């Protein structure tokens, strides 16, 4: 392990991350909410520690290999989440566990919150929460589009071929830096478009900026306790739906579309197609059940609420307009289940990713056919390309670990005294990086204890790191030379 090189990069991350505190600091000074010290101190701490680490290790410019890749990815999320908690401790008056939970939730673009009374919280703090999600989303795109496929996490090597450019397993850095620039341009472009959309549909500028941050990152933090439901505005809901949906697309496809100005790439991408179908079917199903259970008087209202909630859940955003945990019969559980599907690979969304679910289905169906025709040899294909055994095995392994982590986390929460429905939904929402749950965590996560918050913070990180990254770090073989 080249610890020095890893530390150097971590130092750079911290330095860069500290600059993220400047916008909320400026806002604080502008509106004069008196919270500026709450950002200056964390800024100094983060910058100071980052610079110190960097200065010590600045000469360690080694090439990074796979192992360092795993360590950096894990450290990126864990360390930056921890440092991001500082302003919330000072400015949001949270204790460390709460602040860490909130920061992790923000940075992993989950959107579960322990804060309430948001409408009366200082503007700078509210902005900071949304900005953290945006930064998390930005890191995530690079992670999901460039890093995880290179590392081959959970069968994701199969999207590797999609990303353009040459590549060599041993040299991670140049390619990542190269792709990062492209994807950030698109990310920023989409965010700007989202801000404009919000402003045009009547949102105040501050809210528009904050919400666009958590929409594109499919995070789901809001500047209001009532989330998007605060506005009671159909245009705002539609803008949100569109950009949550776009945020859950593979950013390399966005890249292709913008570069060649050809929207055909969206339609030709099997994952996006499958995703759109799943979303449409789920929206319709929820709307029909809501209508027949007479939760809403008109089918249009049912459809409106179903569309918003379902898209918000499946893209793992977690905005709400209505409290869906009290919706009738199986809808709450159904929404929890579809959050496992999540968005497309290479997006800011959470969950297991559509491509994996597609492959699980294709592979499962193939197994059925194999039973009838035992001698049949038919590889599973996506868009006409056969999928390698290594990739399918990777996806099966991913699925099994995902389920295993889910079950263990759920039992640990119940051990801490949580009821089954709450525990089920809390783990679901955190591991899928979605946000709201059911039962006691339907509105916020204030009612649970520190032990449970720590487990859930870990779930968010595990989900964000696609399970394997963390498992690799925990395996003894990783640390052996």
């Amino acid at each position: 392990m080249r610890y020095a090189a890893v530390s150097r990069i971590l130092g750079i991350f911290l330095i860069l991350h500290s600059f993220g505190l400047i916008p909320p600091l400026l806002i604080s000074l502008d509106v004069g909410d008196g919270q500026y010290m709450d950002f200056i101190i964390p800024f100094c701490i983060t910058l100071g520690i980052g610079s110190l680490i960097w200065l010590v290790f600045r000469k360690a410019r080694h090439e990074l290999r796979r192992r360092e890749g795993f360590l950096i990815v894990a450290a990126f999320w864990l360390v930056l989440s921890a440092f991001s908690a500082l302003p919330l401790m000072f400015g949001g008056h949270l204790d460390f566990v709460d602040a860490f939970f909130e920061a992790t939730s923000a940075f992993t673009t989950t959107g579960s919150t322990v804060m309430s009374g948001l409408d009366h919280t200082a503007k700078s703090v509210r902005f900071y929460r949304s900005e953290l999600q945006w930064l998390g989303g930005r890191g995530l795109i690079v992670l999901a589009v460039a890093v995880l496929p290179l590392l081959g996490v959970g069968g994701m090597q199969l999207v590797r071929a999609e990303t353009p450019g040459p590549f060599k397993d041993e040299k991670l850095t140049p390619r990542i830096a190269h792709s990062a620039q492209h994807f950030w341009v698109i990310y920023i472009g989409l965010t700007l478009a989202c801000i404009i959309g919000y402003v045009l549909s009547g949102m105040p500028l501050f809210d528009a900026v904050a919400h666009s941050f958590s929409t594109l990152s499919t995070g789901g933090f809001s500047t209001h306790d009532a989330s998007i439901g605060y506005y009671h505005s159909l245009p705002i809901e539609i803008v949100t739906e569109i950009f949550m949906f776009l945020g859950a697309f593979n950013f390399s496809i966005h890249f292709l579309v913008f570069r060649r100005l050809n929207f055909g790439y969206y339609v030709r991408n099997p994952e996006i197609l499958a995703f759109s179908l799943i979303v449409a079917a789920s929206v319709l199903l929820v709307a029909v059940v809501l209508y027949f259970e007479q939760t809403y008087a008109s089918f249009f209202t049912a459809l409106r609420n179903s569309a918003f909630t379902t898209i918000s859940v499946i893209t793992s955003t977690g905005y709400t307009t209505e409290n869906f945990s009290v919706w009738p019969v199986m809808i709450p559980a159904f929404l929890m289940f579809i959050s496992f599907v999540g968005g497309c690979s290479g997006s800011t969304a959470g969950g297991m990713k559509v491509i994996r679910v597609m492959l699980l289905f294709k592979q499962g169906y193939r197994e059925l056919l194999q039973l009838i025709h035992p001698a049949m040899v038919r590889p599973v294909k996506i868009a006409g390309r056969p999928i390698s055994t290594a990739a399918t095995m990777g996806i099966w392994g991913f699925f099994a670990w995902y389920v295993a982590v889910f079950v263990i986390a759920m039992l640990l929460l119940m051990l801490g005294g949580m009821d089954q429905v709450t525990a089920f939904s809390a783990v679901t929402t955190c591991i899928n990086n979605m946000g709201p749950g059911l039962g006691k965590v339907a509105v916020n996560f204030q009612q649970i204890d520190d032990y449970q918050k720590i487990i859930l913070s870990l779930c968010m990180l595990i989900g964000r790191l696609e399970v394997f990254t963390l498992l690799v770090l925990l395996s003894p073989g990783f640390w052996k030379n």
Partner: protein
Amino acid sequence: MQFSVIQRILGLMLVAFSFTTLPAMLVSLIYTDGELIALFHSFAITLITGLVLWLPVKNRRRELRPRDGFMIVVLFWTTLGIFGALPFILAHEPHLSLTNALFESISGLTTTGSTVLSGIDSLPKSILYYRQQLQWLGGMGIVVLALAIMPMLGIGGMQLYRAETPGPMKDTRLTPRITETAKALWYIYLTLTIACAIGYWVAGMNVFDAIAHSYATVSIGGFSTHDASLGFYTHNPSIEIVAIIFMILSGANFALHFTAWRRRNLAHYFADSEFKTYLVLLFVISAITCVYLYSQHIVTHLNQAVLHGIFQSVSIATTTGFTTRGYHTWPSFLPALLMFSSFVGACAGSTGGGMKTIRFLLMIKQGTREVVRMIHPNSVVTLKLDGKPLPDHVISAVWGFFSAYIATFSIILLLLMMTGLDQVSAFSATAAAINNLGPGLNSVAANYAGITDGAKWILIFAMLIGRLELLSLLVMFTPSFWRR
């Protein structure tokens, strides 16, 4: 599809099945409980239907192919389930509706052990006996199915066992081997049952209860002749101990018993990785349960905590479903832990349900290999089981099984919630049905009388799908199954 051959076999199965009503009629005579006529009618209806099916095609003897195999396996459980429901409908007591009778009968035959009945203690003895015997017959069917038929069909990676079972084999010739294997397994099954019945009797049950419970124990079924299940005997710990021993034995692969029988040697039990994993899992779950029960003062005496902890863990983890104390009322994570443990279930080739320990073991091995592969992407690690390498197609079959299991579980759970069940009840009812376990939590903890007919039908389907190892039922929904 060779429908006439299938019809012939189905007819034969029904004829054979009709004779299983005779012991129940004998019980009715002994206890003069007035259900003789009802049982006789069930006998006659089943026998005549069987003969009507069998006689026209009795000379159609052709080799069976895999597709016919699927068809027969599915028909075995559905048809016998339907005819097995007759006594429940015709009897004066309990005189169930069609849905309830079918639920009870399928629950019996699939060795699930969920019941819609209450006031079981006061039911006629012959009906009680009949219920228990249904489980026993179902268990016998499963052993043959799991060891002789499933490996041939290669369901969910079970072609693994094809090589294990002795004798020559050719993919397309099912019949001769099945009869040979079945006979041997039948002797083992019978011996275990007799041993179990004697064990219960010595431990203090009366003869009727001892026989009845031995049926439900060896078949990993879990029906009881008392509302309180084995809790009826809480004053007698030796009965729980007998139950624990025979649940563990019946949850083991019968092929192992077979070899032990042949070679008069117990050593190879412990050379089998599945059996070892099975014991380790049972031990871990029991240990967690005992420690929690005692440390949280849920059960005050240490020996009581140990006994109840082990009994309940073994009962649920092997998917038997006997209960002594309402484990559904245990606090915190225990009910959920036990429910989850039933997903792993017993060993392949046993009468137990769940996904089977061997699949769980393979998934752990494969999952670990994937983590190693992350670190060394170019490494070639062959998975091995008991020193033998595992082909990739077996592993993908196991994965296919697993994901289909989870998907089916989620869909059934949602459908049950559609009928108005709360999430915990729906979760546990689905798990209890698909894993062929029996009792659930919350509103389905004691029995299933309180749920709607729609929910019962969904659960009937779930029990069947679990018993048929999922894929053999799902395969019938693919168009190419029906194509020539």
